């Protein structure tokens, strides 16, 4: 482009400080020949300043603890060492203590961690983040359960059915798709008349879960997991293990071999 021709985009770039170095003289020369353009660009620059000042003035956040909590939850999730690693360690310690009565660092790494699929940890974490706040809307409402099943099936690459737990007094309130470490995880949230919530997470990532239900305690939450077809199921709630066994059995899990 010659110095005589200056493109409209370059005039904006001049205002925004995004003009490539080599074009500055050309733009200045153009503005020297066109004083009316100087007036126009000055107005753009002035409006830019005014916008910033006005929005800064009214940006003052509404005091809202939900926003602060969500911000903290996001920071935790983005942190190099996610909280679920803590859970994993505690759960592992518990399993070893209960199972063998003695402690060995190498033992749990060899025996315990391979038994706990990622989806279980992710389900527990998602339950804590998304089920605590009763007002927090779900991304997909239960109204379109068939659409939800189709969407989850396409993302997980396996046919997914949305189970009904109405017989147990639990109503499906909705679901969302989460990005798990091993691939997409479908989360479904159920609620009873008193507002008690249970999450069910489904993952098609390979795991060594079995058709028999296994139970773990994760930081005050009870989680049960099992395998059915090509999917791993993880059920999470604040509740007794017996409650969880009842729900999981209703969902098709085999009776547990052992309780951790």
């Amino acid at each position, binding site marked *: 482009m010659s110095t005589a021709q200056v493109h*409209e*985009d370059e005039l*904006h*770039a001049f205002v*925004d400080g*995004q003009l490539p170095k080599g074009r500055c003289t050309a733009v200045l020369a153009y503005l020297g020949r066109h004083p009316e353009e100087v007036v*126009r660009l000055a*107005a*753009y620059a002035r*409006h*830019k300043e*005014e*916008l*910033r000042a*006005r*929005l*800064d003035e*009214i*940006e003052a*956040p*509404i005091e*809202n603890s*939900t*926003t602060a909590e*969500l*911000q903290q*939850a*996001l*920071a935790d*999730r*983005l*942190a*190099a060492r*996610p909280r679920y690693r803590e859970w994993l360690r505690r759960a592992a310690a518990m399993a070893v203590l209960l199972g063998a009565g003695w402690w060995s660092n190498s033992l749990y790494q060899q025996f315990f961690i391979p038994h706990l699929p990622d989806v279980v940890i992710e389900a527990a974490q*998602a339950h804590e*983040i*998304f089920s605590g706040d009763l007002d*927090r809307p779900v*991304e997909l409402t239960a109204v379109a359960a068939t659409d939800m099943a189709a969407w989850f099936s396409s993302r997980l690459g396996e046919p997914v059915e949305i189970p009904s737990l109405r017989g147990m007094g639990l109503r499906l309130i909705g679901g*969302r*798709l*989460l*990005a*798990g*470490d091993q691939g997409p995880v479908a989360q479904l949230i159920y609620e009873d008349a008193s507002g008690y919530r249970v999450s069910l997470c489904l993952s098609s990532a390979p795991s060594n879960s079995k058709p028999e239900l296994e139970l773990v305690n994760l930081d005050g939450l009870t989680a049960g997991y099992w395998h059915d077809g090509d999917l791993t199921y993880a059920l999470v709630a604040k509740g007794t293990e017996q409650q969880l066994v009842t729900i999981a059995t209703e969902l098709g899990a085999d009776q547990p071999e052992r309780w951790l």
Partner: protein
Amino acid sequence: MADRTMIDDLPLHVAGLRRYALALTGSRFEAEDLVQETLTRAIAAASGFRKGGNLRGWLFTIMHNAFISGVRARRAAERELDDGLPELSQAPTQLDRLEVRDVLAGLARLPEAQRAALVLIALEEFSYSEAARVLGVPLGTLMSRLARGREALRRAMSEDAPPRLRVIGDGE
């Protein structure tokens, strides 16, 4: 996963998201709702965030998508429920009620696409290519929205003469 210093900037990004939400919705309450929706979506997608990625761009992209799919759809539905009247090109907002010569009132009257482009560039100082990515449009589209938005704002601000003070009791 992101590194520590990047996460330390999160409160700044959230303040930026709030400004952007305010410019998009024109209401502090809707803006706060949009910020929360954005953070919720970001939490759900956090493990998909690339190490060394652009956290701010990622968050603004999520907000833009949340706005398109959520807030706008909800507003349209509410308007339909409210009165069944044909949708106005611009919903009345808090910003509209400001004085006409106020730059925010001018901004609120711009078509949504131009407003989004203008705010990302003017307020958040995104680079042109970064803003185009956030909005999911080609660079040329971004530039034309920016140019049209700025020009419309300039005309609105110069045509609307500053309100004149009426001299009360003059000539009595």
